[in-house]
């Protein structure tokens, strides 16, 4: 990125980012410095990529004209703690409107890949068209700027995501990797393929400690393009941490928001895993396809119980002091730490645990590990499997997938393997399509075609306004549990003010676990210190808001109709009496909430898309 002035708001074109366009059909690459059009371009991530997507009218995801955009945020590769994010954007094979048009999507991941890409000198790569043979792309730092090579990838085919990373690591030193697993390779039958990102810890230990850009099938898009892996090779160019930046990082660590995700041993709450204790207090932990039973079965997944079977260790991405990863290790006979079993974050833990009727942590770890290795989005896969199990419980005489039932570990394991290897398209294409085939849609846990994360829809009517995943693009999933608010005014306010700002982290290159809102002075301080740019909190908030609204406008342009902004029918038709949080999401409440939210959003959305 070249920064020629300090004011990106009045003069965004004085900030230029380095773009590389790779034509996968011809194997050629071109590069240019692109002047920013607005602050969203400057901040980066989906704020920029969605403006590129908006310029294209794409009718189906798997077509050569649909680009796959890889980019970073303004703080990726900087000395700001958690500044590691890379973003992948495209029209999604998984999320599509009833009219059959694909929705724009982005997915974000940590690891060290984003840093390395930035240090090659690139801020953005647009992959155009598709290769006729399996290839991988190598971006590296050359004497005259970033270098691009396209190489055959036949030797990587069929390997798990982790195996691909380790195979490339043996060939490329000083590099990090974004790869697909078998799921992405089988893109025709798996629309939920994830992109697997390498971490320093993984390369050093040889263990599968990847991070994932999972949502929306961006790994399947890579597979469609026959792009099996991306290598970013560069020396480490982390700048010197200035005293002011040290203060910023100290404040990141010390602020109560990030402390929540820090290890218990450090006085934190131990990462997202701890959500289970909080939600169980309200019997709001998803069980048996988002239908809590009102019992204590999930206690098997509480941390103290899991610690009986595993050695739980808090680890981190490159130089991150938040250390939010809870990695579970087997214990050797002598009590010492053995091999890695799995990472335990809230989403996979619940979606491969209580939500499919499994509360034995040893079994859950195995399923999480399998999903990761095959390279699928844990949320989409978990929520689709739970639908299958629910359907089978309701239709024992005509079941799906050989009649697999809640709690049947071996059969579920087999189902995951078959899905990841492209042998079970009913599951691999997601819950919306499957439920439309069966004709039973009310308990299919998706909104607008994207499967729900592990927070009950009856506790979050704002899912309807999430643009790229229920909890990653609308920060209201814990609002009811945290605040207990059920008023119409409260929900309209939280959606249209704080909730939508959740997406800001997917522009600037930091993790959400920094734990402060986009309007916090820490964000503008961090940008100022890392880049010299002067941008106020209000200006950042305004840019994030425009980027979100552009995404919403893009959904409408891709054919979404008003009645698709809804929740699974079961929420309205059959409220669950076991959940002790207030049941407030009636059809009437929902309709009024939507009307008021649209009345605020729609006027602001005008003019955000190209004609």
């Amino acid at each position: 990125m070249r920064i020629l002035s300090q004011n990106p708001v009045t003069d965004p074109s004085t900030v230029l980012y380095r773009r590389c366009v790779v034509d996968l059909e011809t194997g050629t690459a071109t590069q240019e410095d692109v002047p920013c059009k607005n602050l969203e371009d400057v901040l980066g991530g989906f704020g920029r990529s969605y403006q590129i997507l908006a310029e294209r009218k794409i009718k189906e995801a798997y077509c050569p004209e649909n680009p796959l955009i890889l980019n970073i945020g303004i703080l990726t590769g900087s000395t700001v703690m958690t500044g590691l994010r890379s973003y992948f954007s495209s029209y999604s094979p998984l999320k599509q409107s009833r009219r059959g048009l694909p929705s724009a999507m982005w997915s974000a991941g940590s690891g060290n890949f984003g840093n390395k890409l930035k240090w090659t000198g690139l801020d953005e790569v647009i992959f155009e068209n598709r290769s006729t043979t399996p290839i991988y792309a190598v971006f590296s730092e050359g004497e005259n700027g970033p270098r691009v090579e396209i190489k055959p990838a036949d030797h990587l085919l069929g390997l798990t995501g982790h195996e691909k990373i380790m195979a490339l690591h043996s060939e490329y030193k000083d590099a990090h990797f974004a790869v697909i697993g078998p799921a992405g390779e089988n893109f025709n039958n798996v629309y939920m393929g994830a992109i697997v990102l390498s971490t320093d810890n993984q390369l050093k230990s040889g263990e599968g400690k990847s991070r994932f850009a999972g949502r929306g099938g961006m790994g399947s898009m890579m597979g469609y393009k026959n792009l099996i892996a991306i290598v970013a090779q560069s020396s480490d160019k982390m700048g010197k941490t200035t005293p002011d930046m040290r203060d910023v990082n100290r404040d990141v660590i010390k602020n109560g928001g990030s402390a929540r995700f820090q290890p218990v041993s450090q006085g934190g709450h131990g990462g997202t895993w701890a959500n289970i204790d909080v939600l169980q207090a309200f019997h709001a932990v998803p069980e048996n396809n988002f239908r809590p039973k009102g019992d204590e079965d999930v206690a098997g997944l509480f941390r103290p119980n899991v610690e009986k079977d595993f050695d739980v260790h808090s680890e981190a991405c490159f130089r991150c002091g938040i250390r939010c990863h809870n990695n579970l290790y087997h214990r050797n006979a002598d009590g010492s730490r053995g091999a890695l079993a799995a990472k335990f974050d809230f989403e996979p833990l619940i979606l491969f645990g209580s939500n499919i009727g499994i509360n034995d942590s040893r079994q859950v770890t195995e399923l999480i590990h399998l999903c990761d290795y095959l390279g699928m989005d844990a949320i989409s896969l978990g929520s689709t499997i739970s639908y299958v199990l629910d359907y089978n419980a309701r239709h024992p005489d005509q079941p799906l997938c050989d009649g697999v039932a809640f709690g049947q570990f071996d059969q579920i394991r087999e189902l995951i393997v078959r899905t990841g290897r492209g042998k079970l398209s009913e599951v691999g294409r997601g819950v919306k399509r499957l439920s439309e085939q069966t004709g039973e849609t009310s308990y299919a846990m998706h909104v607008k075609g994207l499967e729900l994360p592990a927070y009950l829809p009856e506790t979050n009517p704002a899912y309807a306004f999430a643009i790229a995943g229920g909890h990653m693009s609308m920060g209201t999933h814990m609002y009811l549990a945290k605040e207990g608010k059920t008023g119409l005014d409260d929900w309209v306010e939280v959606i249209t003010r704080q909730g939508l700002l959740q997406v800001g982290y997917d522009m600037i290159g930091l993790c959400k676990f920094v734990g402060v809102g986009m309007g916090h002075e820490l964000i503008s301080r961090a940008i100022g210190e890392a880049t010299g740019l002067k941008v106020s909190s209000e200006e950042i908030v305004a840019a994030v808001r425009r980027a979100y609204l552009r995404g919403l406008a893009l959904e409408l342009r891709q054919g979404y109709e008003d009645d698709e902004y809804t929740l699974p029918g079961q929420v309205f038709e059959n409220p669950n009496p076991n959940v002790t949080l207030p049941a407030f999401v009636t059809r009437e409440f929902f309709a009024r909430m939507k009307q008021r939210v649209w009345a605020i959003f729609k006027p602001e959305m005008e003019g955000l898309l190209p004609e």
Partner: protein
Amino acid sequence: MQITVKLYGSLCIGRFHSAVREYPDSSTIQTIVTDLGIPSEYLIRLKNGYHVPLEEVVQNGDTVSLLPMLDGG
């Protein structure tokens, strides 16, 4: 007066899961939080199952639940 206090998640570490504790009349949730040495930021506070502010006054026989305020990911 006697208040039943329930703690969840990492708040239990070094404290307790559930205990009946003595507090003076007119105590608030803040009194209890301070007494237990729990930071009052990022805390979910329930009185008899309902969300309440820190200034909420408690009465003899109430149950106060304190939960860490987390977030998703």
